C-alpha cells in the first residue's frame, strides 16, 4: 500500500490528463493527456495492490497503444493544419451530458452501501504467481481466446491497411 499523498498525486494525474484529452483541440496534446491519464491510472492500480496489472498498463497502454495512436496521427493529419473551429453547441451538449452522468453516478454511489469483504484475502493471493496460476488453470479458456482475438486483430489490421494492388 502506498502513502495517501502519493495516491492523491496519481488521482490528480488521472484527472489532469483526462481534462487535457477531453478539452484540447490539438490531437497531439490530447494524446499526451491520454498518456498522462493512463500513467496515473497505473499508479492507482499499484495503490490497489496489483503491481502486475500496473506494469501491464504502462507497457501495453503507454508503450503500445499511445505510441500507435501517435504514429497513426502523424500518418493521417498534416501537423501544420489548424484544427477546425470548435462547434460550441455540440461541446456544450457533450459537457452537459457528462455533468448529468457524473452527478447521477455520484449520487448513486453515495446512496449505496457496498458489502465489505468478509475475510480479506491474504497477500499471497495477490501475488503474480497466484495470478499466473489462475490464468493457466481456471481461466485458461479466456487466456487462449484473448490470444486468438489478438492474432485475428493483427491479421485484420494488416489486411485493412495494406495498399491495394491495381
Amino acid at each position, binding site marked *: 500500500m502506498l502513502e495517501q499523498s502519493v495516491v492523491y498525486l496519481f*488521482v490528480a494525474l*488521472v*484527472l489532469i490528463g*483526462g481534462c487535457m*484529452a*477531453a*478539452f484540447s483541440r490539438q*490531437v497531439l496534446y*490530447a494524446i499526451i*493527456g*491520454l498518456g498522462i491519464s*493512463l500513467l496515473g491510472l497505473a499508479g*492507482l*492500480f499499484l495503490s*490497489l495492490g*496489483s503491481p*502486475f*496489472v500496473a506494469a501491464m*498498463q504502462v507497457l*501495453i*497502454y503507454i508503450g503500445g*497503444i499511445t505510441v*500507435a*495512436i501517435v*504514429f*497513426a*496521427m502523424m500518418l*493521417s*493529419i498534416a501537423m501544420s493544419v489548424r484544427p*477546425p473551429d470548435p*462547434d460550441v453547441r*455540440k461541446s456544450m451538449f*457533450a459537457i452537459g*451530458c*457528462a*455533468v448529468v*452522468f*457524473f452527478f447521477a*453516478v455520484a449520487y448513486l*454511489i*453515495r446512496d449505496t452501501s*457496498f458489502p465489505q*469483504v468478509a*475475510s480479506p*484475502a491474504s497477500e499471497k*493471493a495477490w501475488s503474480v504467481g497466484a*495470478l499466473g496460476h*489462475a*490464468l493457466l488453470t481456471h*481461466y485458461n479458456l479466456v487466456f487462449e481466446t*484473448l490470444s486468438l*482475438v*489478438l492474432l*485475428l*486483430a493483427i491479421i*485484420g*489490421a494488416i489486411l*485493412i*491497411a495494406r*495498399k491495394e494492388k491495381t
Partner: protein
Amino acid sequence: MTLEAYLIVAAALFALGLIGAMSHRNLIALLIGIELMMNAASLNLMAFNRFVVADPTVGQIFVLIIIGLAAAEVAIFLSIILRLYRAYRDIDAEKLTELSG
C-alpha cells in the same frame, strides 16, 4: 482511499471520456475518448476487486482482458483510419457521409 473515492474518480474519468468522444469530430480524438472510458471501467473493476470480492485474481484477470481487447480494438481502429485517410484525405467524422441517405 475508500471504495467510494475510487468509484468517484472512475466516474469523473468516464465523464471526461464522454466529453472527448462526443465533442470532437476528429476520429483519433474519438478513439482517445473511448480509451478513457474503458480505463474508467478497469478502475472500477480493480476497486471492487480490492474492497468487495473475496478472490483477488478475478478483477485482475478482467482488467488484463480489457487491456488486451483495447489493444486489438486500437489496431483495427487505426488501420481503418489509415484506410479512410488514403481514400478521402480526411478523417473528420462529419465529412465521411458517403453512406448516409
